[in-house]
């Protein structure tokens, strides 16, 4: 009997850990763009939030809320010129309609303008990063999470001009 209880307890503990590791946002595609040296390319990262859930936008209405934010570990040959987060939508919990939050739900993009460094070597550059977010449904909130994010930029060979 003790063994049975122990096995069930271990099973529940393991499931509880799974809940804590669970992601509520996923990256829908892994973009791959090509760009000639010194030009700018647009990378659109698309994300999906689980149904019936929302995450704070990049500009939540109050200071204590955790904003959705992308951080990238960029190769030295690449820089991000601009990061564009979409505008969020107003949302209020049924128990307090007066407190308006600014959130994303469903699918949302984050757009990046990237530019290779002057003299960057031609070839593929893999970029990795993390999307920080904090998800809630209409009754409960889940601890802040970090979703691994990736995309690829291929730097094209620059044609040399003939004189």
């Amino acid at each position, binding site marked *: 009997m003790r063994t049975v209880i122990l096995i069930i307890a271990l099973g529940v503990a393991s499931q509880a850990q799974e809940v804590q590791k669970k992601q509520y946002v996923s990256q829908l595609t892994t973009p791959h763009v090509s760009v000639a040296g010194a030009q700018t390319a647009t990378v659109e990262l698309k994300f999906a939030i689980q149904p019936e859930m929302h995450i704070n936008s990049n500009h939540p209405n109050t200071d204590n809320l955790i904003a959705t934010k992308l951080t990238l570990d960029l190769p030295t040959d690449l820089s991000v010129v601009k990061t564009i987060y979409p505008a969020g939508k107003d949302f209020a919990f049924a128990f307090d309609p007066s*407190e308006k939050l600014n959130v994303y739900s469903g699918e949302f993009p984050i757009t990046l303008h990237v530019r290779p460094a002057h003299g960057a070597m031609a070839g593929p550059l893999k970029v990795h990063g993390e999307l920080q977010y904090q998800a809630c449904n209409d009754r409960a909130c889940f601890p802040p999470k970090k979703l691994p994010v990736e995309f690829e930029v291929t730097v094209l060979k620059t044609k040399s001009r003939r004189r």
Partner: protein
Amino acid sequence: MILLVAGMIYLGARISRNQKVGLEPPEAPQVAAGNPAPEFELKTLDGKTAKLSDYKGKAVLLNFWATWCEPCKIEMPWLVEYNKQYGPQGFTVLGVAMDDDADSKAWVQKDIRKFSDEMKVNYPVLLGTSKIGDTYGGVPFLPEIFYIGRDGKIVEHAIGLKGKGEIEENIKKIL
């Protein structure tokens, strides 16, 4: 052995169904209603140490919350009101702030204090740790409330934002 396998299958199906809904974590056996509430020792926001056993003989509403949790913010004024209303009957709210590094980083404690002051919190605020989270079933969602009777046993367990009336009903069960 057949019973064991059947039990595991039932448990797995129940957990899977609950997780699909996204609201209910698996009920940890050690914090199920009827069991003694696990003992803990935590730092308080005012620099002291508090243990659950310090409140022996009192009815305790143990509330897990965080500054980034909007539903927690909604129910806090209700907890403040009930702490004042039922305090003379031997009732207390204990708020456990589950912000990351609540027990170790001064700037996190500053945020918790600012938030608590803004919410006019009139009950002890304890600084949560991952250990107390694990002890109380993982605390994967916030807010989460354990209603603990005067005998130290868990009477009710509520996950997520509930109505004000439901909170008061549960308080009356432990008075």
